[in-house]
């Protein structure tokens, strides 16, 4: 992770957290989902997985818009075998763009369109809160069933906020120490970002702040300890926080596994997350290292189209199927008012 991103992740960042970004659809709007794919580290295969998740959804007949939010390092178009599109997210705030659909470019896959990432604009890479909210609202208005966000590496507030505002947040890791460390840093930053955004902390806030120090006197070492302590000392706030963290829905993909031990890493991370952060990580599974993937990237063609017989394709489909089924169940419960 680069130094800028690291500095941004500190609790005392330049930007105040402000109100949390809201992304809940207005009542009566059609069924629509935002999925965000991130990961603490570059080069773990986020873009590739994003593209293939989107293609899987589109091939099943859903309309999908891919949005390259890897602000500053956008290359989703290359992964789909497209040239740089005429308009990109950079044009988002130009006065002649009324809605996001104008920035969508068709792809070679039916039902799948793309909003390319900004190429050079630092302005877009550091969106202020109000503009982030505006972008999120506009994303919700896109006429697609699924809006898939490819987030950049690192733990900048941009990345965290889009990740937290999405309906589904997916983390991609490699079975390597640096990648796992970065993923934990990402989850930790997201956890505290979320905590910071909770407005009803009130008098518990200074208590929370005092526990941020690793060597605090209360012996609170982990976020899970903090949740327990909050529930004890501030039962009302504690319960609300636990509910908010309980809705923390993070999914994990282990990419490029080469051995059985590699694929088991996901279960280890899940266990550790439960103990350390106190939430249930949803381990979607692992994708084996496959040289076809690298060939497909070199030929600038998406895997699911170029190599439909790759063993990775059914694995990706299974993961997508799992998420869709789970979200449909969740939606049903919400509609029933549960």
């Amino acid at each position: 992770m680069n130094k800028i991103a690291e500095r941004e992740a500190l609790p005392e960042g330049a930007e105040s957290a402000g109100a949390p970004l809201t992304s809940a659809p207005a009542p009566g709007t059609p069924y629509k989902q935002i999925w965000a794919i991130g990961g603490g580290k570059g080069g773990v295969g986020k873009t590739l997985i994003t593209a293939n998740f989107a293609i899987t959804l589109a091939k099943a007949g859903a309309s999908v818009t891919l949005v390259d939010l890897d602000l500053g390092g956008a290359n989703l178009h290359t992964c789909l075998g497209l040239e740089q599109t005429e308009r990109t997210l950079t044009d988002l705030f130009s006065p002649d763009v009324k809605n996001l659909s104008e920035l969508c470019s068709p792809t070679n896959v039916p039902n799948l369109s793309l909003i390319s990432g900004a190429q050079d604009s630092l302005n877009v890479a550091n969106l202020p809160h109000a503009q982030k909210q505006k972008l999120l609202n506009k994303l919700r208005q896109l006429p697609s069933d699924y809006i898939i966000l490819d987030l950049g590496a690192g733990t900048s507030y941009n990345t965290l906020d889009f990740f937290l505002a999405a309906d589904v947040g997916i983390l991609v890791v490699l079975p390597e120490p640096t990648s796992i460390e970065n993923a934990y840093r990402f989850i930790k930053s997201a956890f505290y970002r979320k905590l910071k955004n909770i407005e009803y902390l009130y008098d518990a806030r200074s208590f929370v702040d005092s526990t941020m120090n690793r060597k605090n006197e209360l012996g609170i070492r982990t976020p899970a300890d903090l949740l327990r302590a909050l529930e004890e000392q501030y039962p009302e706030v504690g319960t609300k926080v636990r509910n908010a963290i309980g809705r923390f829905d993070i999914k994990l993909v282990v990419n490029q596994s080469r051995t059985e031990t590699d694929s088991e890493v996901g279960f280890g991370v899940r266990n550790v997350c439960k103990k350390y952060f106190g939430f249930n990580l949803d381990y979607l599974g692992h994708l084996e290292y496959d040289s076809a993937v690298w060939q497909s990237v070199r030929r600038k063609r998406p895997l699911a189209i170029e190599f439909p017989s790759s063993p990775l394709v059914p694995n990706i489909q299974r993961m997508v199927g799992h998420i869709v089924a789970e979200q449909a169940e969740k939606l049903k419960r919400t509609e029933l008012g549960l």
Partner: protein
Amino acid sequence: MGKDGKQSYYEVLDVSFNANSEIIRTAYIRAKNAYNRDSLAAYSLFDKEESKRILNEIEEAYSVLSDSDKRRKYDESHGILSSESVYESYHRGNHAVAAFAREAMSMEGDSGSFSFEDDPFRRSHSSPPPAAAASAAVKEAPKAESHVDRLKALQNMDQGQLGSRNYQISRTHETNPDMEERIKKCENVTGAFLRTIREYKKVSSDEIMNILKISKNYFTALEEDDISRLPANVFVRGFVIQYAKALKLDHEKIANAYMDYLRTKRTAPGA
């Protein structure tokens, strides 16, 4: 997790109360691997000493849960009904459990790992046949039904996912807007309120007990708000979560609201 911060053995291994020995063994190996010295998963969040402590907890949990005698005693002393699996229930003639399991599985659109095809009770079972239940579920699906269904079908059996299925009871009952509103609000969740929801949803106490696998003693203590007869908070929370899941409620919300109530009761003077 209880007020004392101690996890139950089931939580330590991250398995459900009715996990069979095979699931427990897999979970044990995975948990051990997670905290081993050369594991990628733990070292950056837990130091050596903490990992060692967690490993000891895992060993302790496994030594009890892997031994059927010790497990039974542990379950009994913590109010968990004997850990017989659904499969065993079926073969021992516990058709109520088997029938609900079958219904739950067909609701989820997969056949599960057990075959109930030869169950003679199937024909005389009074609730709607699985096919009808499944088609009812489809009608409730969101507008973009076709691609959601196609995508759902892509999901094969979960690859090595741990833990067993959560059973839900689905039954048609008359909808009462007042009651729905109360459930939605989720205020003053007491054992009595849970019972009201259960009765509203036309689910009998036996059905719930079978699915929750808790003893009648604890079950009545829970519904009658006889706090002194309930086990430690950590276990009560587990019961309430499963209770709420069986009734298709928001189990996190219900459990949190109930635990608030329980804590107030337990810390109240004279409790």
